[in-house]
């Protein structure tokens, strides 16, 4: 009879262990790193805090909002495409209502893939980063490259000069 008690105790314990296992759809290790961008005043080259900033990226036929009229920001984390295209177009404006004062910045890079975990899947790492000439020099006058690779989200990659 003691074995019956043993089985009655042991089987629910096993079920509990299995039920508590991690799910495969939760990504805790982090996916592809975003690009960290800070801002400078073009006049004196000093770091700046933007009163208002709107940033979007073009992803195929979609335009995805990254920062929607954010106030008093000193940096922004911009996601890059993971599609293997080798570039991401970024739209920047300081006046969210303006239809004309929009700077389009094309960032080019080479992508490499790295498997992370079942939950995160594969992530992209970006190297040999370059910036094409800006379309629309208002509000962003120029771009400085601080690092030409993105393997984490710690280092500032670009400075937008306003």
């Amino acid at each position, binding site marked *: 009879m003691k074995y019956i008690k043993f089985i009655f105790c042991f089987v629910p314990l096993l079920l509990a262990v299995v039920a508590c296992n991690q799910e495969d759809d939760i990504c805790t290790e982090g996916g592809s790193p975003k690009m960290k961008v800070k801002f400078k005043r073009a006049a004196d080259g000093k770091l700046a805090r933007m009163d208002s900033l709107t940033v979007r990226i073009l992803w195929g036929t979609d335009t995805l909002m990254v920062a929607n009229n954010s106030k008093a920001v000193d940096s922004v984390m911009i996601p890059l495409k*993971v599609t293997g295209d080798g570039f991401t177009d970024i739209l920047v404006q300081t006046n969210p209502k303006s239809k004309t004062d929009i700077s389009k910045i094309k960032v080019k890079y080479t992508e490499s893939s790295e498997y992370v975990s079942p939950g995160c899947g*594969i992530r992209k790492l970006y190297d040999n980063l370059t910036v094409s000439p800006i379309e629309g020099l208002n509000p962003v006058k120029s771009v400085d490259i601080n690092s030409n690779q993105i393997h984490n989200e710690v280092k500032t990659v670009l400075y937008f000069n306003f």
Partner: protein
Amino acid sequence: MKLRLFYTLIFSLFISLSFAQEKKKISSDTLAAKKWKYKPNVMIGVDVLHLGLMAFTDQKLFQAFATSRIQPRLHLVADVGYEKNKYDKNGYDVSAKGLFVKAGTLYMLSPDPENKQNGFYAGGKVAAAFYQQEMRSIPTRGYQGHDSYASFPTSSQSAYWLEGAIGGRVELFHSNFYIDAQVQPKYMIYTTKQENITPMVIPGFGTDANKFKLGFMWSVAYLF
């Protein structure tokens, strides 16, 4: 997964309750051990539950076992099987098919005094799977759900794990046929990987990336 857990619980309760009403004669195992002489005996069983479920699920699992009683309470056991299964979830589309083998021992915890093949048992096995894996889609998470997917060619992989066995066996109508129900907690020890990617389907072990799994068998067996 919930369906499997439910079945496991039901079969465990069923077997437990089936034996709960039996009156046991107290026998001296020590005496029995002294008199014990091995006579060739083999029981072969086929997992009929998974055989029946094949028509209704993506999992195509055939597994069979052979046991031989080598000591009064100790049985050698070997399992062999073939499984074809797929994992199609969270951006993954992976399938695998291949053979698996297991070997180990079972210890009769409460053998029936009248038929030593009847009773509850517990034991352990070592297991290995050798299979073909096809990764049609592995996700790269993109911004706001704009994921992209990578595919890889078919490759040969292997996996090795330890497995517990907790179950019961009962004779059917005083014949040589038996019903054997077994719960199998499993722990993955080692698995080969393609492009360092954790395999999501391993024949004989299960689907998804968890190292702990709980399997089960419900078999009809014949004692030769």
